[in-house]
């Protein structure tokens, strides 16, 4: 599938930075064995926005100089505490990463960064996920594709300091000059073939006082780990079934717990007719009314589900009672902000697109374990925002924050949803009400119907075209409000977001900080308006970008056509900056732009810049009836993306194999969002209850050919990867579809208004019964 071509790292002077740029301050921490630390902040400086020589340059837009990654970093700066690397007497080098890994590979890349600075093998570094550390304030949130960008330098500073101390201690013990000793694979190596393991130096290298120390980082041209492909370090545990997710934890007496939920979205329980009957069902230990439904605790999840389905509950209506797709869309359209340029002034082109609601459900449903006692509480779960969770849980269980321990478990996918901790709050409430530990899990139907969604939005674009220039380009994005709560990950902005208009302010900040129209289109404006706070929402590999980019890239193809230009040539002429032109050229060459295609099939292009990175996609699609109508049982086929060439310039690449994996995931999501996957709201609830209703990309939708090209970059630092693959791919798939069919869709995914290829599942009882005929389908 993928190949990459990494250039040898550029020389230091090529990065326009002085030698002193590699010198930082780290901390030696007073401890029995060597403990080093660094502030989780950085002060690297990015180059100023590139000046443009084009005819009608647009003024620099906010993200080009200062984007969400900078905002997240700066949010951390004033209050940041220290991250620590410890060297144990047994030689282990360990680090508790204050982030959440849901498959992005950040544990592996963090091991690589530490291994690089300490001359270790990657598997000699132990990286775990840190418990909630409230003293980190803004500094323990996993979102916005920010992990590597924010942690790269601080981790290197700590690791380089550790190595320096070990070398000094080793030199003393060997009675040799420190300049003559080196280290490799956890040994300090001296002259004459003598060596000492790190473990034997852990005490000698320790400090009895805590103090600041100047540290010099390894020069980039000496890197031997960073930039080399590395497999995920938890892969063996995964393929043998040993990787432990939250619901795999064996916490004593934490029995399976499931909540019976309302037929309406966010409906609440009013009364239960048969509590005692259900309490006596097989395996059931507890049944109680809680704030979001009726909770059942049982010996097995199967018995808890049976009990949930037996409950006779009268419900209060939900937050969108009686509403459906069209009524919500009317509210969104009513909130669309006006364009600055009136229609019909000169030659204007208008386009309007609707993006229907999408589920950001991961394969691991919302889940958490809780053991709440009178004097303390302990919570386990896959949380990307554990400090905020800790604060909210403390309120629910009426304990001080210091008595609430929040353990971050490895997550089974997130894509943005696990910035919220709905299951952890429910688990805490259930454990408190039952007076017993619980292992709470949402069923798939709950996760799909009541879980967080990527909200419905519209994107309107108006461009004014001159003879050989685009005079103005305006985009108005209007969306069902995305909850950015809990702010930047801690109680301060979480509270601000809950204040009146607070979320809108933060949303607009994030929109302004992430969205850029990367073309020289004269007067360029982008505005966001959000409406209707009654849905459970969150990002799904970004909040706005995939939709904003789809609308924009469709419009770019239209503008090219209006000016009689080829879509590639047009982009090449109007794109801002060498990095974007570089990735565009890479996909055009590798993907053979303009090659002859059969009728009903076509190529399409898309570009996007975000997360300190530039991306381009060249997609080929097959829209011929024999492909679209392929019979697949309980699935959606539709147009087939047959080939994807994707180029990415993300600056310094820590792990090319991990980066390729993230691009592949983004492309799979793009196929789903443009062609097959959406939720339908009807009578106040979402119809889709499982993967046979909600058509995420499957093997039969997967492009047989995928080529990810990592292009050479002189950017000195790593950008963000987790969400990066999606937007350019969305634009390219949409454009390929238009070029293959001649139809410009008004909404995405294109199948949203097709008849359901399934019989909707009932909402009462809330959980579809498990079949009993599984042995009829063996193979």
């Amino acid at each position, binding site marked *: 599938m993928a190949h990459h071509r990494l250039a040898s790292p550029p020389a230091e002077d090529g990065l326009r930075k002085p030698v002193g740029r590699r010198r930082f301050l780290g901390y030696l921490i007073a401890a029995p064995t060597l403990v080093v630390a660094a502030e989780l902040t950085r002060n690297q400086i990015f180059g100023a926005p590139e000046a443009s020589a084009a005819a009608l340059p647009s003024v620099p837009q906010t993200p080009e100089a200062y984007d969400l990654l900078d905002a997240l970093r700066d949010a951390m700066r004033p209050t940041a505490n220290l991250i620590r690397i410890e060297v144990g007497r047994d030689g282990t080098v360990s680090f508790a990463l204050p982030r959440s890994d849901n498959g992005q590979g950040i544990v592996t890349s963090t091991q690589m960064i530490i291994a690089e600075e300490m001359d270790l093998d990657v598997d000699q570094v132990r990286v775990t996920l840190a418990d909630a550390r409230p003293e980190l304030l803004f500094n323990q949130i996993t979102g916005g594709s920010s992990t590597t960008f924010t942690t790269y330098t601080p981790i290197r500073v700590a690791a380089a300091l550790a190595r320096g101390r070990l070398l000094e201690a080793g030199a003393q013990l060997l009675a040799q000059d420190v300049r003559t000793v080196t280290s490799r694979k956890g040994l300090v190596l001296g002259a004459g073939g003598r060596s000492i393991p790190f473990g034997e130096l852990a005490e000698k290298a320790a400090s009895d006082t805590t103090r600041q120390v100047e540290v010099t980082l390894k020069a980039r041209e000496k890197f031997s780990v960073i930039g080399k492909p590395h497999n995920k370090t938890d892969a063996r*545990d995964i393929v043998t079934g040993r990787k432990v997710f939250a619901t795999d934890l064996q916490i004593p007496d934490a029995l399976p717990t499931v909540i019976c939920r309302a037929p309406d979205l966010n409906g609440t329980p009013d009364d239960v007719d048969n509590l005692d009957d259900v309490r006596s069902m097989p395996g059931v230990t507890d049944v109680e009314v809680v704030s979001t439904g009726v909770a059942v605790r049982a010996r097995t999840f199967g018995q808890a589900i049976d009990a949930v389905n037996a409950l006779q509950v009268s419900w209060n209506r939900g937050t969108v009672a009686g509403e459906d797709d069209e009524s919500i869309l009317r509210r969104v359209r009513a909130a669309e902000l006006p364009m600055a340029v009136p229609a019909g002034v000169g030659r204007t082109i208008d386009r309007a697109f609707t993006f229907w609601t999408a589920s950001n459900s991961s*394969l691991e449903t919302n889940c958490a374990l809780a053991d709440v006692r009178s004097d303390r509480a302990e919570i386990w779960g896959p949380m990307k925002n554990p400090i905020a969770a800790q604060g909210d849980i403390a309120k629910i269980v009426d304990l001080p924050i210091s008595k609430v321990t929040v353990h971050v478990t490895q997550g089974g996918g997130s894509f943005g949803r696990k910035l919220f901790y709905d299951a952890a709050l429910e688990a805490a409430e259930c454990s408190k009400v039952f007076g017993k530990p619980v292992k709470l899990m949402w*069923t798939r139907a709950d996760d799909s119907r009541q879980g967080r969604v990527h909200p419905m939005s519209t994107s309107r674009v108006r461009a004014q075209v001159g003879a050989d220039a685009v005079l103005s380009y305006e985009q108005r994005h209007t969306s069902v409000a995305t909850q950015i709560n809990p702010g930047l990950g801690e109680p301060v902005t979480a509270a601000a977001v809950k204040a009146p208009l607070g979320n809108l302010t933060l949303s607009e900040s994030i929109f302004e900080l992430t969205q850029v129209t990367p073309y020289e289109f004269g007067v360029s404006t982008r505005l966001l308006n959000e409406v209707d706070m009654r849905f459970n929402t969150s990002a799904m590999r970004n909040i706005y970008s995939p939709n904003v980019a789809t609308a924009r890239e469709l419009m770019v193809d239209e503008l090219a056509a209006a000016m009689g230009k080829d879509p590639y040539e047009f982009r090449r002429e109007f794109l801002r900056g060498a990095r974007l032109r570089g990735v565009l050229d890479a996909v055009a060459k590798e993907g053979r732009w303009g090659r002859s295609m059969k009728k009903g099939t076509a190529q399409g292009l898309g570009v996007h810049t975000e997360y300190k990175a530039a991306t381009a996609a060249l997609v080929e699609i097959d829209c011929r009836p024999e492909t679209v109508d392929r019979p697949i049982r309980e699935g959606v086929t539709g147009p087939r993306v047959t080939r994807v060439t994707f180029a990415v310039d993300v600056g310094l690449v820590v792990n090319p194999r991990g980066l390729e994996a993230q691009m592949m995931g983004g492309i*799979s999501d793009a196929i789903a969002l443009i062609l097959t996957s959406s939720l339908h709201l009807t009578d106040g609830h979402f119809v889709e209850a499982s993967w046979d209703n909600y058509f995420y990309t499957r093997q039969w939708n997967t492009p047989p050919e995928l080529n990810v090209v990592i292009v050479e970059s002189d950017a000195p630092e790593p950008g963000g990867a987790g969400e990066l693959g999606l937007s350019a791919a969305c634009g390219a798939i949409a454009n390929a579809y238009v070029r293959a069919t001649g139809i410009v869709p008004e909404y995405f995914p294109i199948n949203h208004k097709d008849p359901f290829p399934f019989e909707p599942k009932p909402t009462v009882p809330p959980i579809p019964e498990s079949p009993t005929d599984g042995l009829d389908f063996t193979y």
Partner: protein
Amino acid sequence: MGTHTFTLNGERVTVDVEDDVRLLWVIRDMLGVTGPKYGCGINVCKACTSHINGKAFNPCSVPVGAISDDDEVTTIEGLADGDKLHPMQEAWLDRDVAQCGYCQPGQIMAAVAKVRQCQEEGRDLDDDAIEEIRNICRCGTYNRIREAIKAGAENM
């Protein structure tokens, strides 16, 4: 309540539980074998794919009462031969398939069964055969899964 005995990953196991409890919950919640994952409970996502007497099946959709004394159930934990991984597991490592890893035990068990099925039926393990695999990967690792299945099959 009934007593159910069968072979799980080579060991005889016995549980006392109602006949209609699905085998997935017996394996996970009662026997503590957690490789097979819950992803839907209705035989759609296939995250719990395991083997019964060598064939792929989904224990979320089989009542424990339907399991016989002489049935041999194999989960991902029982696929390797001690420390020696199955060729499909090796292929998964070699291609660095997994991201979050939640679906991958089911993907591997499905892949092994699909390869065996094709071998027995004398079919090619081509893209059409791979596209019969219905297991969902929400991280979108499908391309690497395809590569790994083909590579793993070479050594089976």
